[in-house]
């Protein structure tokens, strides 16, 4: 768990850190769509340059991103290899049964590899420069239109922010329970698969019980502080949309236009 870099926040003071989380969210989403516009090496070159520039602007070292990819590298390579061997067309210079390799398929695999890297880089960039809290605020804002269909946006946002901030408490609780069970002679991560699964039960059940207790305490505390549904509440935290955020979206738009141009060219 400690190795996974996606989803972790790194405090910083860069341009990207100060962008509005809503803009970053939309930008990342747009980027994932834009990536699929690329189909030749010029377009991929442009995208790569763009991502590297964004990484540079965030003030976080490229090494960090590369480290973040490590846990996923096998998955990526597996997909890329499948693509290489199973892409039909072109004239294969090597063939064995259903497997074939051609210049076209190698190029195709390479493009997919770059596409993967770019998507992972940009989404890592989102999570490392945005606090979980900003993220849940952004999601709350972006889900707002769903109110029309009576989707409980405020409740979902409150749940999200409570869930996020109880993660450290619950993980502490888990370690505590695990150590307490170890002290009583439970072996974790040893023996056959069945035994390993069985060993999880003495963690899971106390953890469930303690989350029920926490939920009860928290709900009583919330009620005593006057929480009675999202109606009539005001908001303390407010997101601020600045010129830089608009510019960022404009840049994404320009990128898309350039890609479309390079694609047909």
């Amino acid at each position: 768990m400690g190795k996974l870099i996606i989803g972790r926040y790194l405090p910083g003071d860069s341009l990207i850190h100060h962008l509005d989380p809503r803009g970053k969210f939309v930008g990342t989403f747009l980027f994932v769509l834009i990536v699929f516009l690329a189909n030749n090496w010029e377009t991929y070159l442009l995208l790569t340059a763009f991502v590297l520039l964004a990484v540079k602007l965030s003030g976080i070292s490229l090494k960090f991103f590369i480290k973040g990819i490590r846990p996923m590298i096998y998955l990526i390579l597996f997909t890329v290899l499948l693509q290489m061997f199973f892409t039909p067309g072109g004239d294969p210079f090597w063939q064995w049964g259903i497997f074939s390799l051609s210049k076209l398929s190698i190029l195709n695999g390479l493009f997919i590899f770059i596409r993967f890297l770019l998507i992972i880089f940009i989404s890592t960039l989102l999570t490392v420069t945005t606090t979980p809290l900003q993220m849940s605020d952004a999601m709350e804002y972006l889900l707002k239109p769903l109110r029309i269909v009576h989707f409980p946006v405020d409740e979902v946002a409150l749940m999200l922010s409570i869930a996020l901030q109880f993660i450290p408490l619950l993980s502490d609780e888990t370690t505590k329970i695990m150590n307490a069970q170890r002290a009583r002679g439970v072996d974790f991560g040893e023996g056959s698969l069945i035994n390993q699964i069985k060993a999880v039960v003495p963690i899971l059940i106390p953890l469930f019980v303690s989350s029920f207790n926490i939920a009860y305490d928290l709900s009583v505390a919330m009620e005593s502080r006057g929480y009675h549904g999202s109606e009539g509440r005001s908001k303390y935290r407010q997101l601020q949309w600045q010129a830089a955020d608009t510019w960022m979206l404009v840049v994404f738009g320009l990128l898309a236009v350039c890609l479309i141009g390079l694609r047909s060219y």
Partner: protein
Amino acid sequence: MDPIIELDQVSYTYENAAHPALQQVSLTVAAHQWVAIVGLNGSGKSTLAQILDGLLPIDTGTIKIGGQPLTTDNLWQMRQQIGMIFQNPDHQFVGATVEDDVAFGLENQGMPRDQMQQRVHWALEQVKMTAFAHKAPQTLSGGQKQRVAIAGVIALQPRIIIMDESTSMLDPTGREDILRIMQDLQQQLQITILSITHSMAEIVQADQIVILQAGQIIKTGTVEQIFSNLRNLTELGLQPPFTQQLQADLRAAGVPVTAQYHNKSRLIRELCQLRLKM
């Protein structure tokens, strides 16, 4: 002084419980007082706190807060007058940062944002936690967390604050800090404090002590009244305060100190006087 809390023959039984948690409890609390509620585990102290805030519906009896009876219709208005601070600081945080948490109760009232910012700032200043406004609550120590919980309650400016064993998970320094903050606030804002506690330091400085046993109030009185009889105390499951234990031990050793409860400074004075007479 006007009574701010009046309980008349209040009973409450938990679902599936064989015995009522509170039985015919009647209690009057004067405004601006510090009341300590003591008793053994399971004597109904926390239940008493929760029925006062309308968190549990009572079976029989009436509760009046500030002269007005508590009903299901005016529950939310009444709750605005009462703030509660709970035992486990980790389980009472709603906000992701200190200031967000302090603002939570204000958001519930629908207070405009600029007014909220002032209140949050004021409340954090009262508990000396301004420097931590942007920190996550998880990064704070137990005592600091409890200070934030206090700030969250005083931001609402309630007339009554109920502390439900709020200092029981703190170290002695943290406990003293919280106690001093609460005493200052009580003086400054003229609030009434109901504190449920096992801590002797907290009990001996209260204006009134209420002793609960098996869901009934068996004794109420001032510190002197409650602690005047040592033998009685141990029957109630209360430990005598240090000074009174010392008085009893001195008497047993033949020193003619009075049997009546003294606080530290008065005991010192009496001992000095005795020394002069010798």
